[in-house]
């Protein structure tokens, strides 16, 4: 601010942004508040380069270093009077919520196409017919319930730490979910479907497993949501609550994944369908990788992390 004719040069830092690969000077920001966060700097950068909206900007102190967080404050960074930041384009981004809604709505809809035996899937004499096996109707209810639950959780329960992910992920994820849903649904709703070997007993047991795991998975999602207040990005160790389903936290870092695998195993037993078992296996593999990663970051972040806990399977994995 101009005071008595003297321009105070101390107020406001300078920030220059260079391309991480070419070192080309992309932007020079004058008079940035020392208190400014990276998020605010990203917004200023977008003004000069509107095609790079903040979500696809990765700013870092070193061209090959880690991305700075949106909450980081300029003043607290190890820089001189002129801060040099390196920019990398993360590519087109899409919000997590959009990806989740799309990848979950697909299986819900696709399964129903097979359930109602829409034309051109099975022979024409089966168009719009209905299976005579109770378990087929039950399976449709379970599968649909599962994905409706996921959609509602995405809209009302989950608190995402990241806003966006790369655009290509939506194609990858949708191929996986939609592809497997179609593959499973084809056999379960097939006119030549064979019901489980052990009949009603098997179906009842499987249904019990499925329901318990769905409730468990939901309980964990609620517990994780309550761990983090709305709008914040705080990270805390999750602990068991009064809800017995959350007591699995005593043994496992990611009981939501444990319950999810359990649900699909239940569904596989209920339908006695090999593609369902394969889907459960692939899902289990992926969730184990995620659980191990989460477990590792818990251990790194919290010194007092409970030692008894395993990532996904109590005592084993």
């Amino acid at each position, binding site marked *: 601010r101009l005071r008595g004719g003297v321009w105070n040069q101390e107020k406001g830092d300078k920030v220059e942004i260079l391309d991480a690969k070419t070192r080309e000077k992309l932007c020079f920001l004058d008079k940035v508040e020392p208190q400014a966060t990276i998020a605010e700097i990203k917004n200023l950068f977008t003004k000069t380069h509107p095609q790079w909206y903040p979500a696809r900007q990765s700013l870092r102190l070193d061209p090959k270093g880690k991305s700075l967080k949106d909450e980081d404050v300029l003043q607290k960074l190890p820089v001189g009077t002129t801060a040099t930041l390196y920019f990398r384009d993360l590519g087109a981004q899409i919000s997590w919520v959009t990806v989740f809604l799309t990848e979950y709505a697909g299986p819900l809809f696709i399964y129903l196409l097979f359930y109602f035996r829409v034309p051109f899937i099975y022979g024409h004499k089966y168009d719009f017919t209905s299976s005579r096996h109770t378990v087929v109707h039950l399976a449709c209810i379970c599968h649909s319930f599962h994905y409706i639950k996921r959609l509602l959780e995405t809209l009302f329960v989950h608190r995402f730490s990241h806003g966006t992910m790369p655009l290509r992920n939506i194609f990858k994820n949708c191929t996986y979910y939609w592809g497997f849903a179609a593959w499973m649904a084809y*056999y*379960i709703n*097939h006119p*030549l*479907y*064979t019901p489980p*070997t052990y009949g009603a007993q098997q179906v009842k047991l499987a249904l019990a497993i499925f329901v318990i795991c769905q409730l468990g998975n939901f309980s964990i999602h609620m517990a994780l949501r309550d761990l983090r207040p709305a709008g914040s990005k705080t990270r805390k160790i999750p602990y068991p609550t009064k809800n017995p389903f959350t007591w699995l936290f005593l043994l496992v870092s990611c009981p939501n994944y444990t319950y999810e695998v359990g649900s699909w195993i239940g569904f596989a037993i209920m*339908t*006695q*369908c*090999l*593609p369902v078992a394969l889907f459960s296996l692939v899902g289990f593999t992926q969730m184990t990788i995620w659980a191990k990663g989460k477990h590792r970051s818990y251990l790194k972040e919290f010194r007092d992390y409970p030692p008894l806990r395993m990532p996904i399977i109590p005592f084993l994995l």
Partner: protein
Amino acid sequence: MAAAAATAASKGNGGGGGRAGAGEASSSRKKKGPGPLATAYLVIYNVVMTAGWLVIAVGLVRAYLAKGSYHSLYYSIEKPLKFFQTGALLEILHCAIGIVPSSVVLTSFQVMSRVFLIWAVTHSVKESGHISLKKEKVKNRLQTPLKTWKLERQTTVCQMAELKVQSEDSVLLFVIAWTITEIIRYSFYTFSLLNHLPYLIKWARYTLFIVLYPMGVSGELLTIYAALPFVRQAGLYSISLPNKYNFSFDYYAFLILIMISYIPIFPQLYFHMIHQRRKILSHTEEHKKFE
């Protein structure tokens, strides 16, 4: 594709003897390389493989001279071919434990595609005289005074399948392509590991593929194509509904999908190798200029 992938993914590396991702032959780049024990093992492995494929090459030549024709030479080298090509599965292990700096995924893909062609196509689609039994539904109409009856019964039909793939000329096409490629590739690795790579071997590796790759791919595709009628008729490796695991698999459709997958994959690998060739052979030329 199996022929090309083997050459394509294994880009030349001065020292590591592996299928390096970047394939720089520059000596200014830091090379970690395997330890002395691993190097010794890899040298032995690559020498054995070179020798193995030489045995196959010699076997082909001798069989050709003895028979006087190039038809059905597969039978004379069937066993060493199966042994040494299957042995290449070890290369996946080498990548997994890190003594070879290549991607496990890429190596798995190329070795598996070779092994698939050897066992699941050439070996499985067997000799003539195969008898297949098929259940067929026979429909009849029976006319009685008051009603026309539609009858259906199942009978078992016995068929002789006179189809086989092993005596097809296409098999010879890919066997020759693979043999020449592998002899050069394994000797390339051997010499690289010993840090004494003759330019001729490097040149051969990055030039002969121009002919060998399309040759191998043609042989593979024609062989799969020749196998199709047999697979359809015998229901080879196929499961149909109904069954208690509610699963089905049509090997015939699967083979067709495999053939179609060559369309996107072949050009990519081929042009990648051409690009690599330009980079590596011109680089060596420059080095020679400054000597």
